[in-house]
């Protein structure tokens, strides 16, 4: 077939012609070709930084960084106004956790104790494997009563793996510590908590729990 090429093939050919492109070395002028001015410039920059710039090193153990309040660090288990663990053992967090690191064993709330009269269930044990956790925050999003929260504590260390599996007591103590130190996560105070956590469900005349700030 010796007919004229269709416009399409012409376009294709043009495009094909452009597929190989040479990257030429940039043309250099006289001053660049001397090398030394550029070298002097480099040294000047280095010296400027060495002598006139502020050091940006943070001397870590002495000088702690300030974490943003929405940082997702170690978990805490919140207490309600009466000092009970707020968790109602609904297993939402355990189900939501993508890392499978929460383990809860629920138990019926002690009915003979008047303190627990208005509660059906409570967690008999509540453990979080802090080493397995990926600090995604899904658990606190899932929790209907805002019982579990991620604090801005970041320097989590331990001597053994066993030590890093936090049980209920430990998680509650994290709450006590952070709320005392005024380090509540922002999410605590943002005022958009789940309905189960609304104040009206709880006794109206008890003092607001520590750390409930604006919302309480």
């Amino acid at each position, binding site marked *: 077939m010796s007919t004229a090429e269709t416009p399409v093939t012409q376009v294709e050919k043009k495009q094909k*012609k452009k597929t*190989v492109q*040479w990257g*030429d*070395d940039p*043309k*250099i*002028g*006289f*001053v*660049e*070709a*001397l090398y*030394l001015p550029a*070298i002097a410039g*480099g*040294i000047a*920059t*280095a*010296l400027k*930084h*060495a*002598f006139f*710039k*502020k*050091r*940006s*090193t943070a*001397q870590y153990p002495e000088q702690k960084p300030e974490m943003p309040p929405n940082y997702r660090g170690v978990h805490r288990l919140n207490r309600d106004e009466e000092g009970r663990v707020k968790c109602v053992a609904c297993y939402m967090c355990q189900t939501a956790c993508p890392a499978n690191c929460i383990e809860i064993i629920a138990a019926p709330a002690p009915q003979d104790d008047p303190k627990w009269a208005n509660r059906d269930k409570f967690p008999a044990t509540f453990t979080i494997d802090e080493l397995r956790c990926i600090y995604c925050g899904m658990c606190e999003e899932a929790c209907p009563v805002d019982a579990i929260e991620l604090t801005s504590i970041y320097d989590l260390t331990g001597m053994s793996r066993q030590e890093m599996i936090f049980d209920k007591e430990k998680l509650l103590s994290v709450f006590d510590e952070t709320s005392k130190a005024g380090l509540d996560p922002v999410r605590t105070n943002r005022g958009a908590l789940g309905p189960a956590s609304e104040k009206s469900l709880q006794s109206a005349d008890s003092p607001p729990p520590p750390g409930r700030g604006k919302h309480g």
Partner: protein
Amino acid sequence: MNWYEIWTELWPTLIAIGIILAVVPVVGLYATFVERKLAAAVQDRLGPNRVGPFGMFQAIADGIKIFLKEQIIPSHVHTFVYMLAPCISLMTAMFALVVLPYGPTPVNYDGGLRFVVMPGLDISLLIMFAISSLSAYGIILGGWASNNKYSLYGAIRSCAQFISYEIPMGLSVIGVILVAGSMNIETIVASQSSGDGISGWNLWWQPLALVIFFTSALAETNRLPFDLPECEQELVGGFHTEYGGIKFVLFFLAEYTHVVTVSFLTTLLFFGGWHFPGVPSEVTASYGILALQMLVLLVKVCGVVCFIMLLRWALPRFRFDQLMGLAWKGLIPLAMLNLVFLAVIESLEWHRWPLAVLSVVLFVAAGYWSAWQSQSFVRKASVA
């Protein structure tokens, strides 16, 4: 010759050797510390500052750590050569120091305390270059024995780099030798003395030779911007990929010894050695003056070492073709032209100032030439 005479001949040599053996590792360790501090300063950091005051003992801590490391010999290496390579590397690097005066040394040495292992050697500069080029062996053997292609690449690159940069280095030094009329380092230093202590330095008369020498010497030390034999981005670790612990440190120490050697050579050949305004230029027996001269020399050397370390953070790395291009298309022709004109000027026995003019003219001409070449360069290859 009785024993007493042998002893009087021997003790200054033994002392000089002892000083080198004792000081080189310490200098190597502390050079890493200084380099880290300097790098930190350039990058707005603080650098090591935990071990001892200002982190001074960091170097010692590093040394202890490295000595206590497990010795791992990979199963795929040629064990004997693999073990031999770092030793050769360090040995040649240290061996080059035997002709290097690390303190004021008179031209006509006749007994007594001295600061060089082999004084009065007529060809000390030649020996220096001969031995320091041997250090390529260590790297090549190490790269080959590692039985790893990245190591071999590093070694081959190093070899090519060595061969290329030996030439401009030698050519640029010949100018200095011609002017001094000797290959003896002590004589070259003495030839740079002058009444005011500073105007005699080769730096003022042969700046181009200094630039060429320093560039090629830097390339010989395998340091940035010429560290292609070991660049992490391309070759893992280059020739020392398979080395760890003390064997790696030997390579490392060899590199730093090279840096120190190069700094000494630059100082001795171009920066007037122990000459300085206000310091007597004659090497006498007075200890006070000797100490002063030694101080001058060491301060100059430290300055050059710091400059080399600073360059590392000031310049980007060369590409390998640029590296070769710089040596073969830039430095070698320049050094050769410089040498020819310099020989002519020297043989006419004029004053020395035309030498300085010559350097500047050649340098500017080279700049024009390469700019013109770059501007008029058109790639001929057509698109397939």
